[in-house]
């Protein structure tokens, strides 16, 4: 791939020859090998020469040779990993193993190479070497290397870089890299003095819809200090205006889609809290203010399991989450059952007192966790298979942990549904919900089921805690921030309705995130709370009210 226009190339070639001559002198003719047969080898070794000019000449030589095999050597040069061996050759230094490797073959260095000293280079050379490296990388078979190289070149902003990028752009087959190259080209061309090039650049930006160039477009359209538009050419201006609109509308769509995705993920966390509340509130008529603390306990259980795996089962660390799910459920289930037996069962029929008592319990739980784990937040690491994300479009990444949380909540909701509507236990529970006395009359063990269901509600919140631990930090006050929201979900959805909880959690989560970009996070929350307060005025029984005589 010959890239530079003829005059430059010939000049380079001459420089290259000079450099070669110098190299031959320095390296002693490469151990008797014919100089021109090993040009690449020589040029690479030239990178490790003592003087700046020689290094610079070697870099230019490599640019002319345009051989991707030189990439490791140049890369090492830019990263300060290149060493000049005692034998006068260039070696790549591995900072982990402290080995020296041959830059072309990767073979370990013979004993004669040591001691090797660092190649000293100034920023000028580095600035020269980087575009050359990028140029070589543009031809690399690896997609991501080509992408990074395009990025590097467009930042360099020289004419040579523009020519290289154009060539690469025309040749590129892969769509993703092609788009990225288009942008890199456009970023350079938009600065060009040629109106046609600028026009082409603007059109490219328009086509790609990428918002990375928004600032450039706005600059073209803006008016300078002298009252003249920055862009003299009217056609380019018109095109830029259109491109700007296209980019903006695309950005709006992406923001909206992103909000919906984040809304769904917020909704899934709310749903975890609300599912349990819907069960305890619906079945037992109990307002459990300590419900948020069950989320917190679940998250801390996850943290404990993670720590245990780190210390004792480091090999299976990636799967700690699989163990954390049952552990968190069992812990919170047990806490829930104990609470029900000790406190809550004495307070049925007195919902206001339950509210206060469970608030007291929540304080005790928070303080206990603080004493055990400390008041500071603890970090729960994502396992590798939940780290990262899929990029749906430019600027819209869907993280795996959020997908995982949504999948998890769907699975748990389905399980709860099956339990409540497809098992004998569920039938009994629903019977109690409808008429406790009658259910007791036909032999349903209402007391025992109360405890079980309270435990189940707590256990589901515990599972929510596992999910929360994957989204952010875990602290003793974690539950407090969710309790009001989850009550809103239950109240909005209608007490004791599974479907109501799901629909209102989704609705609240998505609405919250949709308002956020326009009004800010806090205002979004205020608007939603205000909306709920108004909504309850209209429909005190919630969206999915149970038909009954309760509205008398």
């Amino acid at each position, binding site marked *: 791939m010959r890239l530079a226009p003829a005059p430059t190339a010939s000049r380079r070639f001459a420089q290259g020859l000079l450099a070669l001559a110098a190299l031959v002198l320095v390296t002693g003719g490469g151990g008797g090998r014919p100089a021109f047969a090993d040009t690449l080898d020589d040029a690479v070794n030239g990178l490790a020469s003592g003087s700046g000019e020689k290094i610079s000449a070697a870099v230019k030589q490599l640019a002319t040779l345009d051989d991707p095999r030189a990439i490791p050597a140049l890369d090492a040069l830019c990263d300060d990993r290149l060493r000049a061996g005692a034998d006068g050759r260039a070696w790549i230094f591995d900072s982990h193993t402290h080995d020296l490797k041959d830059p072309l073959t990767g073979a370990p260095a013979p004993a004669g190479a040591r001691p090797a000293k660092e190649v000293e280079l100034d920023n000028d050379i580095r600035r020269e070497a980087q575009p050359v490296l990028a140029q070589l990388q543009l031809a690399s078979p690896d997609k991501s290397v080509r992408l990074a190289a395009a990025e590097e070149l467009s930042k360099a902003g020289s004419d040579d870089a523009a020519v290289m990028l154009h060539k690469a752009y025309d040749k590129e087959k892969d769509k993703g890299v092609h788009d990225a190259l288009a942008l890199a080209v456009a970023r350079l061309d938009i600065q060009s003095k040629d109106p046609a090039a600028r026009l082409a650049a603007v059109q490219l930006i328009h086509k790609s819809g990428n918002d990375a160039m928004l600032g450039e477009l706005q600059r073209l359209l803006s008016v300078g200090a002298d009252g003249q538009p920055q862009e003299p050419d009217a056609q380019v201006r018109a095109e830029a205006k259109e491109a700007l609109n296209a980019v903006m509308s695309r950005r709006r769509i992406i923001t909206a889609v992103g909000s919906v995705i984040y809304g769904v993920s917020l909704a899934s966390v709310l749903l975890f809290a609300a599912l349990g509340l819907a069960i305890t509130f619906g079945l037992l*008529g109990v307002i459990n203010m300590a419900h948020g603390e069950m989320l917190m306990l679940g998250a801390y259980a996850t943290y404990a399991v993670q720590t245990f795996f780190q210390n004792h089962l480091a090999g299976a660390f990636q799967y700690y989450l699989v163990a954390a799910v049952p552990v968190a459920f069992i812990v919170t289930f047990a806490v829930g059952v104990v609470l029900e037996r000790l406190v809550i069962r004495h307070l049925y029929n007195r919902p206001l007192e339950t509210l206060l008592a469970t608030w007291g319990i929540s304080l005790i739980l928070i303080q206990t966790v603080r004493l055990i784990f400390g008041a500071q937040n603890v970090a729960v690491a994502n396992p590798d298979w939940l780290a990262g994300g899929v990029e749906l479009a430019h600027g819209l990444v869907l993280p795996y942990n959020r997908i995982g949380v949504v999948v998890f909540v769907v699975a748990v909701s389905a399980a709860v549904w099956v339990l409540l509507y497809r098992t004998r236990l569920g039938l009994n529970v629903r019977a109690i919900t409808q008429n406790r006395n009658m259910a007791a009359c036909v032999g349903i063990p209402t007391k025992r089921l109360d405890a079980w269901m309270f435990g189940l509600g707590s256990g589901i919140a515990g599972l929510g805690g596992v999910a929360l631990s994957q989204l952010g930090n875990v602290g003793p006050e974690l539950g407090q921030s969710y309790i009001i929201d989850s009550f809103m979900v239950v109240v909005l959805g209608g007490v004791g309705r599974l479907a109501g909880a799901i629909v209102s959690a989704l609705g609240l989560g998505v609405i919250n995130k949709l308002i956020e970009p326009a009004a800010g996070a806090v205002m979004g929350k205020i608007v939603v709370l205000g909306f709920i307060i108004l909504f309850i005025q209209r429909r005190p029984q919630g969206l999915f009210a149970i038909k009954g005589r309760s509205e008398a």
Partner: protein
Amino acid sequence: MRERLLQFHGRRGWLLLAVAAAVLIVLVPVLNSLPKSFPLSVPDYLIPLLGKFLCYGIMAIAMDLVWGYTGILSLGHALFFALGGYGMGMYLMRRMAGEGVYRSNLPDFMVFLDWKQLPWYWHGFQHFGFAVVMLLLVPGLLALVFGWFAFRSRIKGVYLSIVTQALTFAAMLLFFQNDTGFGGNNGLTDFKHLLGRSLQSPSTKMALYVASAVALVLTYLLCRFVVTSKLGRVLTAIRDAELKTRFCGYESTHYKVFVWTLSAMLCALAGALYVPQVGIINPSEMQPSNSIELAIWVAVGGRGTLIGPVLGALLLNGAKSYLTAAFPSAWLYVLGGIFVLVTLFLPRGVLGLLTTVRKRKAAGAPRAAEVERPEAPAEHAGTPEKATVSP
């Protein structure tokens, strides 16, 4: 007249009240003025603390009016308290115009935000009278509107609790915003003087304490007047059986709105007295836990007694002041434990316990365990899905 006064309180009740008022209003200042070496002398630093507790006492009475007597558990009373406090804070901020860090006519935080002029709702607050009227009217109006809509829609029980909590939470978020114009996170602070007197001087602190004590006694008398009147009877009837009361021809909504608004305004008064004594008002006063703690003061003291909540507020806040300093990690256990134990074993609070003990002694029957539940099941009978569990 005499009859009404006696119905108001028995002779012994009046006497006790007079003694309590004398202790609060006269004895404490006298003890404070004694030389420090005197064993019973009340040190200066205790005065604002006591004043603060008395403000909590006013708040507790206000809470008791709606919860103990009318059966509405509000989890939003901290909102009204904070609004009253903000009203007073605005007055104090306006009075120190030009004395702030920036020597500007505007409050410091506005200068900091680069605001050029006062927002419209700050106008007039440099006049004490206007500020006092506003700090009572605004929370009152808010309570009136909110109460009207909530009670008209027959939102009651835990639903009302949750909605009031949501309202307070929303307001807290709003006040946390800098744009709202109340100083954001930091709130209003750095007050210099009230009615021309320096807030730092012991005499002003004493005056504020006495004002709080007088306000507490007056609040008590006002609430006593309300609950011993016919209106009070209706309120109790609403608490015990709202539907029956309605069917008897009493429009329960009106009664509830009235008592709700009155309670909110009393809270605002407490907040207004509280702010100059602690020297700061910020949105964290509205956090949900404050409203819930208020409920537990009332529950500890004894609901439906008026004097109980004051005792509860003094007791719990005294314990809090002591324990958070002496055993910081134990306080939440104590508070949490009180929440659980009081609701489980002392549904009528300390005062209820005393009454029971006295009655038992009088009757000479050691096993006359009489535990009255302040909330009749009728309140929940309306919802069949939460039908009563047979004990």
